[in-house]
């Protein structure tokens, strides 16, 4: 275990920054999001949740994939090589850290995504343990320990001190020059956090029946209509979600060519996977169902029971009309399955 | 007496747009104090417009206006001559020492039939 005074964080970041960019929670215009560190950045490691999740570091909202150039009637194609330099993602909470595993299953299995893979390969993930879970937190349901998140290195902030533990070589490289430390304060904090976790309102959700075996049962449940009634069809839940990974590939005509890029898409949108014949999810009921069926049924049934929800609680906090996955689990879950 | 009071000053104080006047004379036709006045309401309008402010300021007409607002009410173009007259009066009062009436004048003016209210309002109107 290593340690660093919170006051010296800037110095440490500055040192890392000499060789690689650091991506961490930064406050800008009153909101905390992941951003690239500069000496002027307002670092907010204390923020429990960033608005958007840490997935941006590997899967940004918009990214260019190829360019077409037109010169008169001639068209040339230019592929974009996903060259990525080493970088650090720092301050990742346990839930977001877990989301990388889920995203890996999607992007690193066949067909392999070179853009995502390049970023994963060149990244070092430094996680941050939670000391003060929120009422909306329910990561514990998915086997996540917020007091001991996985990563190349893990941080605990206790009072004015950051404690660090490296778990991989990459992590070790970052912390090796720091001072050694006693593990007692960290253990004390962990105990406290785990105690709170026991008391979390959503700490013990009944996920029984959310699996491939009950797929049609869940799919045909009449409660979807009621559950989705207030849904505005906005993309807030999907865009703040650390595990949502759907994207659309679009062309932008620059006037002298075309840029083909991908951008996040949301299954809540009426034009999600829209095809020439129209859409097979014509109303918000189907779209709403799609999102939660994917997280709780389709994904686990294809991934050995791994849910594609990490319980970060962002959708609970951010849904304009207070709809969320917990309400779905409670309505459809448990004994009824 | 050089007052340096300009047309613009009077227009600003009064908020009147003299260009709206079409010189129909209805204000003077309706004025109950017409015979008392050297310059009549419609003359105020064009005299202000043409910068003849000094003459108006020197004239007793400004004290003869009853401020009954008949001209203002009847004017078809909403020119509001009464406000111009009031503005000229204001311009005079604003000159130091130019009060038309002082406290000392009052006892001599007192009459049994004169309501107290009239004296108070006269003070307001003729003195700063």
């Amino acid at each position, binding site marked *: 275990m290593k340690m660093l005074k919170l006051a010296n964080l800037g110095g440490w970041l500055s040192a890392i920054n000499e060789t690689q960019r650091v991506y961490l929670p930064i406050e800008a215009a009153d909101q905390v999001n992941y951003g690239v560190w500069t000496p002027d950045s307002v670092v907010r490691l204390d923020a429990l949740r960033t608005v958007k999740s840490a997935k941006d570091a590997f899967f940004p909202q918009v990214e260019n994939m190829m360019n077409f*150039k037109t010169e008169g009637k001639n068209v040339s194609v230019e592929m974009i090589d996903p060259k990525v330099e080493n970088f650090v993602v720092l301050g990742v909470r346990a839930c977001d850290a877990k989301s990388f595993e889920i995203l890996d299953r999607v992007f690193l299995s066949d067909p392999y995504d070179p853009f995502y893979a390049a970023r994963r390969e060149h990244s070092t993930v430094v996680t941050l343990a939670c000391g003060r879970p929120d009422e909306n937190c329910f990561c514990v349901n998915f086997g996540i320990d917020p007091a001991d998140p996985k990563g190349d290195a893990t941080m605990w902030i206790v009072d004015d001190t950051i404690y660090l533990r490296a778990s991989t070589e990459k992590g070790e490289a970052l912390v090796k020059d720091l001072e050694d430390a006693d593990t007692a304060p960290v253990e004390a904090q962990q105990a406290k956090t785990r105690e709170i976790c026991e008391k979390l309102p959503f700490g013990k959700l009944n996920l029984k029946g959310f699996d491939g075996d009950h797929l049609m049962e869940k799919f045909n449940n009449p409660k979807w209509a009621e559950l989705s009634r207030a849904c505005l069809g906005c993309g807030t839940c999907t865009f703040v979600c650390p595990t949502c990974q759907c994207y659309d590939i679009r062309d*932008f005509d*620059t*006037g*002298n*060519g075309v*840029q083909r890029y991908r951008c996040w898409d949301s299954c809540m949108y009426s034009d999600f996977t829209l095809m020439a014949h129209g859409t097979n999810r014509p109303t918000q009921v189907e779209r709403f169902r799609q999102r939660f069926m994917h997280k709780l049924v389709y994904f686990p049934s294809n991934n050995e029971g791994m849910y594609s929800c990490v319980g970060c609680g962002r959708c609970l906090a951010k849904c304009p009309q207070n709809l969320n996955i917990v309400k779905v689990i409670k309505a459809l879950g448990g004994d009824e399955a | 007496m050089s007052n340096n009071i300009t047309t613009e000053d009077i227009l600003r104080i009064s908020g009147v747009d003299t260009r709206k006047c079409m010189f129909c004379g209805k204000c003077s036709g309706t004025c109950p104090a017409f015979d008392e006045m050297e310059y009549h309401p419609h003359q105020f309008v064009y005299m202000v417009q043409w910068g003849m402010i000094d003459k108006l300021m020197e004239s007793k007409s400004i004290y003869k206006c009853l401020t009954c607002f008949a001209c203002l009410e009847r004017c078809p173009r909403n020119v509001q001559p009464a406000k111009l007259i009031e503005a000229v009066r204001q311009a005079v009062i604003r000159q130091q020492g130019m009060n038309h009436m002082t406290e000392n004048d009052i006892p001599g003016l007192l009459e049994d039939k004169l309501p107290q209210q009239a004296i108070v309002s006269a003070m307001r109107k003729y003195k700063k």
Partner: protein
Amino acid sequence: MPVNTEWKPKIVAFCCNWCSYAGADLAGSSRLAYPADVKIIRIPCSCRLNPLFILRAFQRGADGVILCGCHPGDCHYSTGNYYARRRMTLLFSMLNYLGIDSRRTRVEWVSAAEGAKFAATMNDFAKTITELGENVKLGDLRCKEN
């Protein structure tokens, strides 16, 4: 393609068919010069100008956008330019609010008889835009690449 290193402004002029486009034609037949940076798009009436078209022009690299229509009261369609006037006032004010120089947008009423006014307006607008320089605040970088 010849590469022109010297920056020249791009100006889009939307002209209503009945007054201002004819005014532009008259400027032409009177041989009244104005910069070639001004390119005219004919629309039936000033009220046809959708704010989207203006933003589109800026996106694609325009440095100034001007709308010309019949004088208020003379609209071929009686009321079109009155609506255009309100829409443009509000749009320009919004752009200004966002910190975009409102001098990059303009509305002028030019009748079919005002060829000289058309040319003078375009000369003045082009001069203003040249002084303001390249539009960087409202452009789309993707359109400037290549």
